[in-house]
């Protein structure tokens, strides 16, 4: 660019000593227009307050040169925010934003896509991220680097009078709703991540009505009686029973001393509808090294994928199995809706009747089997039937003193407590209903129906099964025989073993008898 491109009043050389101030807007009209509306523009700061007009690539000022040491006192976790985010994120207008995680590992074969994304849904979630960090820190503590970057693209001229609200990032479709994990080193690839691993969602008034408190009609003012932070006394008002157990536990005495250290009263889902994954997240917010402390546990990842911490750490809690169904739609696998159900079944009264055909209030193996077969027939591969082991009634002591035993056998046996408490979660118009399931349904349901189901002891024969075979008569015997399902493997195996042992004993007897 020539000098006269900006200093347009130069008509001859030598030019007058005093020249008019050039107008940046002549070339940068759109930037100047945006800038004019910004707080800097309103306060009439000239372009050269930040830009060196004669050496445009040099001497550009950063925000911090003027705004050094701003406290950001009202910003929660201010140090974390200030270290991670450029000023533009909150104070400007952002056009593009993304979280980029870079992991560099030079040992070949160590972090394959399968290792990072074990469930192979092309999305790294919280558990998978924790699992990856655990594996890296265990296997190569000094041989990897992780770089986390919050990238924003926007116009620095648009600095606003007031900073953006927290919801700009901490709400469903706000900024940083996309994240990706870039792996480099021996293997290089990119895999999407769930951005909520790093930026949690905040509750909103809009969502409050969908929460368990909101559905029960509890008004904001019932808890927020003053500007002060809500304390435990507010919770005790309704949940006295739980608090009576909790107040004497080690958790209450040190660590999670407040109810809200673990529970978010604005959560959209009621506790019973939280997945085990979401329930683990509650504990993991403090017990961040939970994968390290459970290194002894075989199949650690699987246990944390399907079980919540209370399954083992709250022995007095009631556990159950909940069958739930998912349908494959445009947005991936989503819980089966009432609409899906009504498109298959003719629902005249309550949806319960489509499963509970004998209307006795509980479901037996045949009713469950017929229902699942019909579902599979209509939705084919678009439906997935799963089961989760969940705590159905919580006992609020999660650290029973002296109980450091590894209680594997409680679940890994046919006598596990959850087999007595099974439910089918069935979608109604505006909620899920839970129908009790009775009997040894699991072992007799064929694989074709339950291909995704992975449970622990339902295929192992018990003494009761043997007694049933020997003692029952008539129809009860036939029903018992049919309900055994996979347990026949043990029963036939043990019968065959007994036959072999008997054969050997007879052979030995004959050898002795014939002196051979």
């Amino acid at each position, binding site marked *: 660019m020539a000098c006269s491109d900006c200093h347009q009043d130069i008509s001859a050389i030598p030019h007058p000593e005093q020249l008019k101030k050039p107008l940046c807007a002549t070339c940068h009209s759109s930037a100047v227009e945006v800038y004019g509306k910004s707080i800097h523009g309103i306060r009439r700061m000239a372009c050269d307050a930040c830009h060196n007009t004669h050496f445009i690539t040099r001497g550009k000022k950063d925000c911090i040169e003027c705004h050094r040491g701003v406290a950001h006192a009202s910003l929660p976790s201010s140090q974390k925010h200030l270290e991670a985010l450029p000023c533009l994120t909150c104070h400007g207008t952002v056009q593009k934003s993304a979280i980029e995680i870079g992991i560099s590992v030079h040992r070949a074969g160590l972090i394959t896509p399968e290792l990072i994304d074990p469930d*192979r849904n092309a999305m790294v979630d919280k558990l998978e991220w924790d699992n990856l960090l655990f594996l890296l820190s265990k296997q190569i503590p000094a041989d990897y680097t992780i770089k986390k970057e919050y990238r924003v693209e926007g116009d620095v001229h648009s600095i606003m009078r007031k900073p953006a609200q927290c919801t700009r990032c901490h709400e469903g479709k706000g900024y940083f709703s996309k994240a990706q994990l870039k792996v480099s080193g021996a293997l290089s690839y990119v895999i999407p991540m769930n951005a909520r691993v790093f930026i949690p969602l905040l509750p909103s008034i809009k969502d409050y009505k969908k929460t368990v408190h909101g559905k029960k009609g509890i008004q904001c003012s019932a808890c927020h009686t003053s500007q002060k932070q809500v304390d435990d006394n507010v919770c005790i008002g309704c949940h006295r029973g739980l608090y009576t157990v909790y107040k004497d536990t080690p958790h209450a005495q040190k660590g999670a001393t407040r109810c809200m250290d673990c529970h978010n009263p604005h959560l959209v889902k009621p506790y019973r509808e939280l997945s085990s994954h979401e329930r683990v997240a509650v504990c993991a917010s403090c017990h961040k090294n939970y994968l390290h402390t459970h290194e002894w546990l075989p*199949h650690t990842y699987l246990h944390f994928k399907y079980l919540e911490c209370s399954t083992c750490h709250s022995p007095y809690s009631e556990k159950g199995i909940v069958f739930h169904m998912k349908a494959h739609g445009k947005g991936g696998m989503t819980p089966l809706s009432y609409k899906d159900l009504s498109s298959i079944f003719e629902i005249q009264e309550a949806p319960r009747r489509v499963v509970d055909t004998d209307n006795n209030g509980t479901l037996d193996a045949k009713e469950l089997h017929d229902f699942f077969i019909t579902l599979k027939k209509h939705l084919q591969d678009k439906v997935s039937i799963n089961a989760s082991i969940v705590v159905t009634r919580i006992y609020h002591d999660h650290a029973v003193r002296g109980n450091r035993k590894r209680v594997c056998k409680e679940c*890994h046996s046919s*006598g596990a407590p959850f087999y007595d408490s099974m439910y089918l979660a069935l979608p109604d118009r505006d909620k899920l209903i839970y129908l009790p399931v009775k009997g040894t349904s699991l072992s007799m349901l064929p694989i074709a129906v339950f291909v995704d189901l992975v449970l622990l002891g339902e*295929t192992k024969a018990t003494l009761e099964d043997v007694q049933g075979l020997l003692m029952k008569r008539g129809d009860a015997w036939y029903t018992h025989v049919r309900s055994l399902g996979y347990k026949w493997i043990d029963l036939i*195996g043990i019968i065959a073993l007994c036959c072999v042992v008997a054969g050997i004993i007879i052979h030995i007897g004959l050898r002795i008898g*014939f002196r051979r």
Partner: protein
Amino acid sequence: MKKIYLHPLPIRIWHWINAIIILLLIITGIQLRFSAIDMLEYSWTVSFHKYLGFALTGSFLFWLFYCTVSGAFTKHYVVRLRDIQRMPIQALYYMYGLFRGKPNPFTATPEEKFNALQKLAYLTIMLAATPIIIVSGILLSDIVVFLVFIKALGGLRCIDAIHVVAGYFFIIYLLIHIYMATLGERVYSYIKTMVTGYEIIAGEDSHEEKGDH
């Protein structure tokens, strides 16, 4: 008395190591299956069973390699047409002839170590049951890593069922195998053969005959 060298040292070492592995796998497997039996801590048993399974895989691969390279596989294990014809004769001996003091219709030689029923049993256990239990065990050892294969093969319950059925087969085989080992000249004769490598056959001139494997 005739002394025949039947089992070379590598096979004898393999046999006893394999026996210990299988015995420990059966013991830990029973505890995993019937958790009311409380021998070791459950989580420890799971890990121990898994590592023993890997040891069995190594042991099986060694046997396969050794038998293939040395030619022992085709020589001693392959069931031929004449073996099928001999099976009823051998079975009849165990069920009747043995008690009447009749001679064993089969005499082990360095060229043919096993009788027709032994061949059938060893071939089934080594080429069917062992690979099945190893493959299903490897799939169960890391469900997350092998999930795709597990689903393709019918799901976890199916793989678990196959593994358990093969496990029962092993226990039954082991009981019969140990009992049959007592049917030699003396109760401990065959067991001694598996330690020293030599089988002693009574009633013939005393000399030593050596086999290649």
